[in-house]
């Protein structure tokens, strides 16, 4: 590959080979680490490319003539790092995020609608189950509604009031963290062949349904739906997306197709990541709404409802209509 210059012949030994080439390898390593930390001039990028090709040629020679030496190990490492550096320059940083939002995420969403349907089914079953149970037998609330919520409702107000008047900012971040954790878990438990994802979706639906009906029965329906109106749609949507991503993973395990399971998992994991890249910022937004708008009495239920439903509708419209181009 590199026929330029009087290259060391095999006979002259690894020492002469290293001495003849070392300066250009070390220059390559320096350029690569400068790609990591800063910018290169156009000339230096060209130099990097040229040095990388030479080093790749040297590596092939070292493999053949001096296998197992430090020279080979060093070259292999430098060439691999240089490859990473050059590769990344072609790939682009912020542009990739833009492409993800415009094309890749909606495309992944549309490609896995059955998984979304499954997530929705488990969440809805939980919701219906929780609501029905408390509606038919108020004693079920003892089992399904958390004690602090029951205490607050028994005292005639929502549990959120005391909580949020303390420190909205803190609560907001705590809520966001909690929601992100729950969504991450819903996604990650896809690795249990979907069983964990299904259970978490169902359990969260159960809780929400039971709490809603418990509030309704105790005359707090208005305040409750007023409270969840602003952030609820976005939050539930993001939770569903995480569930969809979890079932995408589960699909790779249950039915890897013609691939080995590991490869199928890695490929579908990349698709699922695109769904998560949507879900996480939406959850952050929902947490912000919850802390700032939902808890604030100055905003009427109508404002909250319009804000929440508007945000949810915008999210679904974007996911359903966007894309069109298949992601690479």
């Amino acid at each position, binding site marked *: 590959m590199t026929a330029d210059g009087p290259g060391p012949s095999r006979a002259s030994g690894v020492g002469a080979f290293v001495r003849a080439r070392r300066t250009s390898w070390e220059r390559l390593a320096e350029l690569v680490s400068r790609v*990591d930390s800063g910018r290169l001039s156009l000339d230096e990028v060209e130099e990097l490319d040229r040095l990388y090709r030479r080093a790749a040629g040297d590596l092939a020679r070292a493999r053949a003539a001096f296998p197992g030496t*430090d020279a080979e*190990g060093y070259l292999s490492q430098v*060439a691999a790092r240089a490859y990473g550096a050059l590769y990344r320059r072609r790939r682009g940083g912020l542009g990739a995020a833009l492409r993800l939002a415009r094309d890749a995420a909606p495309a992944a969403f549309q490609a896995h609608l059955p998984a979304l349907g499954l997530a929705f089914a488990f969440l809805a079953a939980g919701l219906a189950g929780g609501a029905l149970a408390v509606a038919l037998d108020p004693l079920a609330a003892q089992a399904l509604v958390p004690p602090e919520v029951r205490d607050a409702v028994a005292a005639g107000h929502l549990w959120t009031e005391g909580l949020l008047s303390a420190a909205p*900012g803190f609560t907001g971040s705590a809520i966001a963290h909690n929601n992100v954790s729950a969504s991450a878990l819903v996604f990650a438990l896809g690795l249990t062949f979907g069983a964990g994802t299904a259970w978490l979706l169902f359990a969260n639906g159960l809780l929400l349904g039971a709490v809603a009906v418990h509030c309704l029965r105790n005359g707090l329906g208005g305040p409750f739906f007023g409270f969840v109106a602003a952030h609820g749609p976005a939050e539930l949507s993001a939770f569903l997306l995480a569930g969809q991503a979890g079932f995408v993973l589960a699909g790779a395990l249950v039915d890897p197709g013609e691939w080995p399971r590991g490869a199928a998992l890695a490929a579908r994991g*990349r698709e699922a990541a695109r769904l*998560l890249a949507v879900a996480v910022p939406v959850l*952050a937004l929902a947490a912000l709404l919850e802390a700032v708008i939902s808890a604030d009495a100055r905003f009427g239920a109508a404002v909250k409802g319009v804000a929440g439903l508007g945000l949810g509708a915008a999210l679904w419209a974007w996911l359903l209509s966007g894309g069109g181009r298949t992601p690479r």
Partner: protein
Amino acid sequence: MSPDPQLRFEASGVALSLEVAGLGPRALAALVDAVILFVCWVMGLVLYSVAGDLLREVQALSVAGQLAAVIAVLLSGWGWDVAWEVLGRGQTPGKRALGLRVVRSDGAPVGLAESLVRNLLRAVEVPLGYAPGVLAVALSPRRQRLGDLVAGTLVVRERRYDLSRYDPAAGADPRFASLRGRAGALLAAGEFERLADFLDRRAELDAAPRARIAALLSAALSARAGSPAPDRDLAEPFLEALVAAYAEGR
């Protein structure tokens, strides 16, 4: 499990390989990151308390300020690794300190999507004390934890190589000048490296084992050269001269 598994991949027609990192360095790197994050939080809280009443400060924040607070917590909890891995070419500060790097299984740097997945899967690993992660790292051939398996990534270790061992030593003992030009035939490439390793690290050895190893090596190698074994005190100069002659080439 075999030591030092390798990640092999092909780039522009050349087969490249990187050493896959084991459990120890990775756990250490995670510890370093946790300490840095902890110090950052403590410092932030101290600064905040100096400035005034924490609760009132937060309550008085504007919407933008509260947004910043939400984002700060999110970033430190979930985003620390993602941000460093994406912007720092696969290295968090802890990984950088240990010479580790996250790469895709095709050798390319990790992107946003892969980093997001491999770090979000900590959700199942952290509550269980990282047990699934540790098991997966120990059992998978490429030392991947669950997040790595799903994201298609792995952690590689960058070794520090010292190429100066190939420099001809200036002060090689003249009594062994006859080795010059013959060392290439006496040593295989791998043997040269191990011999150079011994000479590099001999200062760390106790005197007795150091002398014993040097004597064994010099006896075996001088037999190959067809000359009598050097005296005990000349064993190391003989090995030095041999390495220097080998590095010099013919």
